[in-house]
């Protein structure tokens, strides 16, 4: 095999957002070390500006229908990739906004922080475009490197170092699994490109290979039983990094999962459905039940995140176009609600230096705005109508009903009740309990902006979801040949076994 690189102008256009972002992050780095007295807040806004430019370029691509593949099918730009790139960039912009105040607590390397965040974002943009097994491996590792550093950014904090170490060891372990899985799949099919695998016969090698790859990606999205790093890492990492970690890499990994299982493995669906059903049931149930006992808000959000990933896996288990639409819409709603909740957590912890749920007592007295925002974010996460989370869950459930995944559905429905329980505990503390210290809390403008964006997203996606659903539907048009619903409603006899 020979590698030759021929790039034409139109090929460069496909890469333009990534190229621009690469240049931009270099510019940020150069500015940081050349202008020593520059206020770091300005760097943050510069980064957000770069991200927004990239975002707008991608939206324009989406609008005009730019698409194509590069580097012998290793890199693909289609509407699915654009969707996830926009998703990653949105969360990056959000995270930079909520970092502005927090960065002041870092002793060193404040400018590099933004550089690292942008670099991880770049890696995740590539992940969204990964179209063969090698590019999956490379882009996944690329995006993770930035996070290894970011997680340990609080250098004096033992917890942060512990978080970094756990994240690193398990991340490397996952990378090993991924490489091993890729080698098995390559051995079984003789190709790396997703599109070419579908025509091959199933074999044990292929099956084991894909289970290993699923496990590696399971680490990234934090699905049970690959979740063990999540709580400690979330708790120890600087909170904006936790927020970033809780959404962007998961979105990018879901992009790879969708592409891999919908494109490469569509023909082997009966083999992998059970994998997703089990992971989904375990994640939802474990995440929600353990979340009840948490005393730290970051850990609570960590476990609730595990459960939310369980919900998203319902869509993958459905394995249909509607399943993928539902996942993508769900991710959007999760983006706003989850990052909004983290924005509130950062706002509170900047002021009172604590992430204990006990310290949220009487938040309503101290800052009615933060309490009301947190209320809406938590209720959206719990799936209470008419907030975004409800529509997203409904969409997922319908996708699952079409595929007759009734056991999964029943578990998911019961989990809604469990989840609301622990969100209500937090809500109760904010609204009912008396504050230990009734001084009012005020937050800075960038944080407030982030909270407003989160609120707007959560409300608009709930009340007028149509344009966003249409967007998700359009992004997955290539899956429309996948299994139209075949299911019919079961009769009572078939459930009772008569």
């Amino acid at each position: 095999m020979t590698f030759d690189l021929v790039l034409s102008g139109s090929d460069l256009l496909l890469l333009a957002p990534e190229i621009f972002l690469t240049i931009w992050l270099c510019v940020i780095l150069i500015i940081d070390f050349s202008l020593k007295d520059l206020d770091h807040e300005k760097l943050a806004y510069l980064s957000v500006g770069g991200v927004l430019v990239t975002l707008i370029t991608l939206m324009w691509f989406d609008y005009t229908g730019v698409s194509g593949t590069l580097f012998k099918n290793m890199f693909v730009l289609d509407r699915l990739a654009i969707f996830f790139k926009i998703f990653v960039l949105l969360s990056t912009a959000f995270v930079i906004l909520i970092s502005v105040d927090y960065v002041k607590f870092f002793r060193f390397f404040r400018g590099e922080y933004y550089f690292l965040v942008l670099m991880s974002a770049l890696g995740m943009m590539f992940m969204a475009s990964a179209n063969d097994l090698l590019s999956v491996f490379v882009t996944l590792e690329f995006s993770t490197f930035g996070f290894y550093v970011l997680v340990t950014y609080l250098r004096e904090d033992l917890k942060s170092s512990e978080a970094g170490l756990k994240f690193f060891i398990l991340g490397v372990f996952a990378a090993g699994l991924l490489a091993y899985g890729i080698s098995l799949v390559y051995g079984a099919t003789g190709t790396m490109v997703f599109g070419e695998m579908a025509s091959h016969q199933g074999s044990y090698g292929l099956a084991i290979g894909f289970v290993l790859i699923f496990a590696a990606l399971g680490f990234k999205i934090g699905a049970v039983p690959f979740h063990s790093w999540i709580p400690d890492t979330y708790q120890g990492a600087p909170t904006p990094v936790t927020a970033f970690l809780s959404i962007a890499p998961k979105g990018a990994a879901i992009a790879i999962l969708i592409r891999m299982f919908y494109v490469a493995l569509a023909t082997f669906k009966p083999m992998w459905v059970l994998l997703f059903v089990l992971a989904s049931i375990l994640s939802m149930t474990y995440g929600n039940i353990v979340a009840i006992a948490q005393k730290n808000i970051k850990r609570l959000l960590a476990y609730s995140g595990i459960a939310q990933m369980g919900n998203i896996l319902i869509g993958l288990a459905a394995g249909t176009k509607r399943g993928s639409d539902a996942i993508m819409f769900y991710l959007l709603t999760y983006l706003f609600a989850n990052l909004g909740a983290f924005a509130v957590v950062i706002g509170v912890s900047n002021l009172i230096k604590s992430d204990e749920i006990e310290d949220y007592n009487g938040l309503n007295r101290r800052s009615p705005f933060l309490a009301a925002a947190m209320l809406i974010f938590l209720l959206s996460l719990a799936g209470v109508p008419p907030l975004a989370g409800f529509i997203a869950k409904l969409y997922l459930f319908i996708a699952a009903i079409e595929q007759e995944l009734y056991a999964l559905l029943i578990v998911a429905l019961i989990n809604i009740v469990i989840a609301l329980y622990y969100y209500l505990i937090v809500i109760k503390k904010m609204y009912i309990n008396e504050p230990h210290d009734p001084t009012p809390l005020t937050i800075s403008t960038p944080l407030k902006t982030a909270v407003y964006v989160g609120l707007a997203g959560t409300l608009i996606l709930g009340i007028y979801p149509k344009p966003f659903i249409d967007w998700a539907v359009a992004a997955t048009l290539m899956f429309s040949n996948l299994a139209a619903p075949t299911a019919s409603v079961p009769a009572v006899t078939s459930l009772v076994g008569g």
Partner: protein
Amino acid sequence: MLEELRFGFPILSVLMFLPLLGALLLWVLKDVDLIKKSALGICVLELGLSALLLLRFVPESAAMQFSERLNWIPGLGISYHLAVDGISILFVGLTAFLTVLIVLYSWDSVRENIKAYFMSLLALETALMGIFVSIDLILFFVFWELMLIPSYFLIKLWGVGPERHYAALKYVLYTLLGSVFMLLGFCLLSLNYFTVTQSYSFDLLELMTVPVPLGQQILIFWMIFLGLAFKAPLFPFHTWLPDVLVQGPIGMSVVLAGVKLATYGFLRFSFPLLPEASTNQTVVAIVMTLALIAIVYGAIIAIIQPDFRRLLVFSSISHLGFVVLGLFALNFQGLQGSLIQMINLGFTTAGLFFLAGFLYDRLGNTLIDRCGGLARRLPVLATFLLIIGLASIGLPGTNGFIGEFLILLGAFQAHWVYGVVAVSGVIFAASYFLWFYERAMFGPLVANLPQTLKDLTQREKIIAVALSVMIFWIGLYPSPFLRMINGSVQEVVDRLDHGAMAWNRSGDETMVTQMVKD
């Protein structure tokens, strides 16, 4: 499909969102007195609007009136579809009426966090209105769940009992548990629609045009049943009710005991959408048995309650049993009686909760052995208690009699055993109320009553008089109310009698007549 009448102005949307906008208005107000007055103003405006709705409603018609429709999520066939018909129209009026009374009641008896209280109350009114005017199943579900949030805060923040935190949580989680199964049932209905027409729909009127196989109907029926039974609450799902109604604030008790959301759900969704399952013998036998147990069990437990509000809780369970009994008698009298009885309970049971609230405000508790001879000190209160109480046990001339009589008529037609058991409930009801009244109001005056025991204030009198007027109006001259509901009730009965076939046929006919007109 059912005929739909439109109205020049989106009155239902206004009815639905007016209280919510009012709640937002309250948010910016500072002055406590102004907050109370604005809340009252909004509720009175809402009552006026709903009175307009009742006046413009075409009686003796099965049509969906004041219809409004917009696409919401077209990909899943979810629409913003509002309409009222004979089944829902009276609930709209009842909700507006009771909210005004609750605001009046809360004027002095709520002392903390007044702004938040009235905001929650108005948000709750929006949710209730939404439940009654939604024709789309998902839209209905949205309001059904939305109701939990203000309820949670109302119970938790302004509950009167020490166990209110537990009660609020129990209420939300119990009803949510039932509701998620109801949602699954709705989704299965929509999926069935999909298998026939290749598109999704959650619109009640569209779903009714597609037959559902019997086996599926029964499965879906039980799923929806779970949602409704937890919320109602029907025996044996009632365990949250005593906690919430005794620990929660009076306003919340009035809403939960007076606005019969769940039994409305049977008439709105279960019967029209699942006619074969609703008339299935096993289903009817199970539900009827539960209803009869509720009637007798509720009434017997009520006799021995030491607390007036707990007594009301169990009498409420017993009354709800009557409503379900009438519904599942599945004939015209039964359904008509149940529907009118649901409205009646909004005046009688809810009225008794108001009176319990008056007592609570005066004595600090509602324990029956702490009362005694109160009629001498509080003659006006005692009089209204007697009027509303007798209406609640169905004395002829009051509204309770109309409802119970029609229900019993329906029950005897269905099977004499149902009628006989239910009649025993009427007797128990008389005994629990009269015995309570004798102990609390007559007899020797108990010692250590508060010195400053005042009779009803002006505002309390307005509440009691308003309730009594409605009680006698429906009791003596029920025909305007019955005329409003008759058309839709007949339509449901037809559908139950002939199964889904009857509706498809009438749907074809409307289409034919429309084509002829064109």
